[in-house]
């Protein structure tokens, strides 16, 4: 099946937005997961709630909230435009921001589970062996949480690829700029005689999802082997 230029545009745009969303959110997700796992402070549950908000709010509401904060006349949006000449509305970077926020809880949850599963005894051992806090974080916590970090990133990447409501509300549906695969399918369905185009795009999405599944399974297997020395003769 040969892809038309518009289809390639939508595919590449989707991949770009999802990649930027996941990579951009990753450090924050690790920080939030550490804070929620190891932090003992009043108001922790509030941070927990805020992190999980995108998961429970309708995506359209997320898009609306983004619009009223990052719109060119909204407080943060105006400040960004004035000082850094950054305009998020109607641009693919805005779509990446929306996708990053909506998929943020998936990353945090997966990393958090991985962190909670690290035996605290290993930290004690590392302490008696001379490792300070930063040393332990880099050489113990991060590598042991790596399977969770990758699992979270894969889930978040898929969620970003499929994000519709927040993106269309916040950055609209502009061909070549913000029209990702789901938005392109929606547009095709709305167009009279667009059934074939919609079917082709849907098939493309399914193929993409299958590829993603296979790649992620292979990655997880490789990492588990490398980390734990399991499943190797």
């Amino acid at each position: 099946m040969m892809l038309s230029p518009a289809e390639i545009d939508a595919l590449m745009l989707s991949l770009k937005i999802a990649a930027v969303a996941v990579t951009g959110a990753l450090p924050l997700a690790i920080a939030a997961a550490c804070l929620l796992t190891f932090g003992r402070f009043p108001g922790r549950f509030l941070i927990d709630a805020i992190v999980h908000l995108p998961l429970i709010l309708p995506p359209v509401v997320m898009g609306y909230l983004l619009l009223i904060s990052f719109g060119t006349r909204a407080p943060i949006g105006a400040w960004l435009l004035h000082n850094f000449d950054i305009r998020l509305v109607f641009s693919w970077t805005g779509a990446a921001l929306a996708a990053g926020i909506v998929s943020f809880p998936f990353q945090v949850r997966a990393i958090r589970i991985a962190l909670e599963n690290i035996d605290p005894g290993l930290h004690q051992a590392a302490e008696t062996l001379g490792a300070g806090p930063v040393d332990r974080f880099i050489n113990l916590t991060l590598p042991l949480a790596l399977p969770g970090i990758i699992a979270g990133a894969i889930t978040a990447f898929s969620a970003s690829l499929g994000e519709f409501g927040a993106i269309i509300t916040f950055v609209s549906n502009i061909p070549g700029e913000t029209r990702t695969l789901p938005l392109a399918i929606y547009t095709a369905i709305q167009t009279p005689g667009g059934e074939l185009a919609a079917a082709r795009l849907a098939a493309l999405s399914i193929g993409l999802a299958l590829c993603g599944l296979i790649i992620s399974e292979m990655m997880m297997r490789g990492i588990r082997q490398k980390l734990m020395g399991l499943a190797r003769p």
Partner: protein
Amino acid sequence: MTLQIDIRHKIGALHLDACFNVDRPGITALFGPSGSGKTTLINAIAGLIRPDHGTITLNDNAVFDRKNNIHLPPRKRRVGYVFQDARLFPHLSVRKNLYFAHRRSPSPLPDSEIDAIITMLGIGGLLSRRPAKLSGGEKQRISLGRALLGNPDILLLDEPLSALDQARKNEILPYLEALRDQRRLPILYVSHAIDEVARLADNMVVMENGQVRASGSVFDILARTDLTALTGQFDTGAVIPATVTGHNKQGGISYLGCAGHQLIVPLLPPSPLDRDAAPDMIANLPPRQTRLHIRARDVMIATTIPDAISANNILPTTIFALTPVTPDGIDVALRLGHNHSNTEKPLTSPVIHARITAWSAQRLDLQLGQQVYAIIKSVTVDGKMRETDA
């Protein structure tokens, strides 16, 4: 090297109140039943917990001092800690686990020392493996090596054998003996297994309900009848130092030297650490230190030297205590050698014990200071019991 401890700490129902010093190389056993505060105590020494009161001094440096608000983090205390469950880092190879502390040590060991430790522990062949692929005994040996490679001032071992089955324990014990004999390092060894303590320790601290009940040389403590309620699972008797002096392969016997006296036991196998020694080379192995456990019920008493008897080991001894231990049983403490005055200070010559009936004691008319012969039916060497009259 000295370790001075004087701390009080409350954790749950346990009130820990411990005060003692460790000031020489060798193994000091921290012995007591579960829940007596042994692990809490070494966690405090390592800096993993912060006691409520008191001081801990390592090499004249206060690592903990409540009044002056000193609490050094574990990494600044120069302690090597071997945990019950090994705690190897699963994402690192054995080699990287071993070198973890070495890389971070302010005074790293020279390579020759590292090689010596790896050889001593017999782990050279495991270096490229992952921890998940190791047996429990191998894991514990690597954990021991990892702690040693950090060049610590003191080694803390928290029941390193308790998670292992008997075969694995027997695999590790010789390495611990080698560690004790080859490296001049004070070792604090937490254990609730008295046979391990008797085999390994030089000194012991007996703990009960968070309190130190007794401390001193392992030979003295194990000879004390007032502590049998605590050391009780052990077959009452004596643990005495000895030297394997030689072997007679034709006769199938080995000779042990003990305070100027000679004992004969069935031919001892080579120590597991003499792996390279061929079986017929045993006779040429150099003398080595060991310790004997002589159970009180394996010792008989004769007032004259018996001549026609199958027993090989008949030692001249002097009675220095007669203690009733059961309604019809008497524990006779016997100091090796004749001609001891009853006022002689303890510790000059090893003491063994005999458990006899009150009837026998009366029949033989045993008196303090009397010179008698101890007939030893069996002794335990290297953790294995040997019948000596067979």
